[in-house]
């Protein structure tokens, strides 16, 4: 009991009251829970928020790999890097609406609403039959409060 009431920090012994000890134990337990569950939460959030465009079977591997790279950059808050990577995809083939739409999303995240709108329009101009993507782009082009406030990737 005496041992449990002693906490060691930097070779200094500090006497702790039992209620503080309980508090610390609770904190540790909550940290443990977060460590175990947080990655799952983050992954779930990402999977929900990122549009399922990288899974589109029509996209060639090269475009998918660049979208995947830009998603990582986006999630690391490297928005400039994400845009640069998406531009590489556009250079390889500018006809994939998913790439333009992704660029619109990154601009939106940066708060550059006009650039986001223009890139969403660009995406619409090459969409063939992806209704979901068109609706998403339209949400950026003619925003109502729910669309602009919405953060599509998070």
């Amino acid at each position, binding site marked *: 009991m005496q041992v449990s009431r002693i906490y060691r920090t930097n070779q200094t012994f500090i006497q702790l009251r039992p209620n503080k000890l309980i508090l610390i134990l609770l904190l540790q337990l909550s940290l443990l829970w977060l460590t175990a569950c947080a990655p799952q939460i983050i992954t779930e959030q990402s999977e929900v928020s990122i549009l399922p465009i990288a899974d589109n079977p029509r996209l060639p591997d*090269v475009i998918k790999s660049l979208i995947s790279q830009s998603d990582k950059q986006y999630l690391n808050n490297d928005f400039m890097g994400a845009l640069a990577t998406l531009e590489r995809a*556009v*250079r390889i083939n500018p006809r994939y609406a998913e790439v333009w739409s992704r660029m619109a999303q990154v601009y939106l995240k940066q708060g550059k609403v006009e650039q986001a709108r223009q890139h969403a329009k660009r995406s619409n*101009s090459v969409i063939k039959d992806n209704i979901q993507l068109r609706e998403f782009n339209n949400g950026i082009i003619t925003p109502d409060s729910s669309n602009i406030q919405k953060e599509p990737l998070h």
Partner: protein
Amino acid sequence: MTKQKSKARKKASKKKVVKKSKGKFRFLFNKYSLLGLSVFVLLFSSYLVYLNIQITDKMSGRIWSLPSHVYARPLELYQGKNLTTTQLISELKQIEYILVQNRPTKPGQYRILNEAHFEIISKNFTYWDGEQKSQGIRLSIYNNKISVLHMLYSDETLPLFRMEPAKIAGIYPSTKEERQLIKLDEVPDDLVLALLAVEDRRFYDHWGIDPKSIIRAMLANVMAGGTVQGGSTLTQQLVKNLFLSPERTLTRKINEALMALLLEINYDKTVILETYINEVYLGQNGAQQIHGFELASQYYFANSLRKIRRDQMALLVGLVKGPSWYEPRKHPVRAKSRRDQVLKLMHERGALSLAQLNKYKLLDLGLAKKPRFSANRYPALIDLVKRQLKQDYNEDDLKSSGLKVFTSIDPLIQSQAEASVKRVITRLEKNNTRAENLQTSLIVASSQQGEIQAMVSDRKPDFPGFNRSLDAVRQIGSLIKPAIYLTALQQPEKYTLASRLDDTPLHIKTSKDKLWSPQNYDKKFSGDILLFDALNKSRNVPTVRLGLDIGLSDISDTLHNLGVSRDIPAYPSMTLGAFSLSPYDVANMYQTFAANGFNVPLKVIREVLNKDGQPLKRYPLESEKTIDEKSVYLVNHVLHQVTQTGTAKSLADSFPQSLAGKTGTTDDLRDSWFAGFSDNQLAVAWIGRDDNASTGLTGSSGALRLWSDLFSHLNVDGLQMHQPAGINKVWIDAESGGLSNKNCLGAVELPFIQGTEPTEKAECKSAGFIEQIKRLFN
């Protein structure tokens, strides 16, 4: 006795006088000498302070002017990419990779197997988004496409690989100095040892000047009857190079010694040594001076200082004594002898064993092929790069901050553009007696992203003269017409592609008593003509009528929405392109057609890094929808017809791919234009004369041929006309514009904005069997 005494007295009195006068003189001497000495000390110390300021200013600021370097686009490799083996080999040569016979083992090497399989080991390279480590890849090319892309030593497929970009130009300070900085801890110990053994053995023992070395050198020189040895320390040499002129005067020598002392007082030996290693002059590549051991190592051995052999280090150290005299490519025997001297000294200092010394002495110099780095091969493009950079950086920074400028320039396309210019201009002058002293401009850009890929501004592409692509402002003739028809079609309630236009004589009063009577190119009038056909056949008179009807200011607005930034004059003849634009302006304008109404300002720079590889600025892709996509679609439909049945129909025979474009010719055949695009590329060609005399060429017989020659050598993706929602295609009678069907004679299928289709039916004469078969296949 008395006499003797008086003599002695006289002597004594004389001595007294002398003593007295000497004492007085000493007093004066002391007084002035002290004053003089004080003044001297004051002046000397002020001078020392002045020299010290010079040293600390330079050493604490930017010591060297580092030229900025311009890079081409990196080649992206991926499965399915259009790429021929010739193009890949050309690219690898551009980035100075070495072809080897066996499996490549070092970065920068490649091997070709069976003319279609490549094994490549890339070099490390720092891009805007970070460093890409060296990697081995193998790829196969089949039917002019990359069919396989794998890691070199495994079967793991790579979705994408980015080859490092070629360094295509430098932006130099007036001194034309070129160097690559290296830190002292990255310099091999053996090189430092050899350098000190040869140039300054007591470097770590002296204070900038070394009296022992000076005496030894003086003795050696006296014995030899001339200058055979220098007594300068490394510090003195550095002072001479950094601060003083090369003249051999006593004053300069004194300054050199004083500044060397001051440098040693102010700075650590390691700083002095590192600065020396980066400063020393080691050769000349054309106009560029090679400074520093790192760049010299790359220049002579195509390898970093960290990776060269010790005998190669010895050669570099030997060059310090006389880079021209020992220039190894010009004087290999002399250079080898000097290298062996240095190797011997390295052996004496314990850096080499006797066996190693003997082994290295047997080796040849190990020189690489002379690199072409720094040469400005693309003067027009680099001029454009500089102009765009100057919007963000001042001239001094560009020439001295060591910026790394990444561009969209595509060396493969550029070399094709240059070849096309040479080929076609020569052919045109040979086949047309009126065509002589022709000049040209050819601009190529990616049609959807507006990135400049190639630009030629002179019939001699590498001639760094007048940049016609940017500065030759010439009348554009019929290139204006798509803008006029676009303006009209933006009023769908009034104009459709099937609207009837009046093609009869027209007289316009322009000023007092002056009449302007525009003519068609064939000097004939067709009566009535449908709007699409007037553009397809580039008829002048109906265009003028249409332009005047919709209003000159609306046309001017459309031109600005298309990306033209110059002022457009508002007089009737502007409807026939009687105003001037540069080829670059025209490319901007047609890019908006190519991108279906999205104006993407042309740009050539992608990113800029500082000398340490840190990102400074990115130039993102900008895109703004300035024109309604439906009306652009209608115009593009006709621009495609121009390449099938109109003024550029020769393209239909040469290209299976779908293309779009417009010819332009000005009065007296002074200017010949063609602007056209495919799905992935846009190009504008202009041919004219600098004295504005007639070329004898129309748009079709001149610029179109240049454009066509270029496109026949590019990887052209056919135009994908993505039909926007709200567009209907309808068969109409090409004569009357009434509704028809595909089985009727003279019927054409035209797109209409929904609700604007013709309602009246035209008389249907059945198309012949052959015509129907043709339509079936179309």
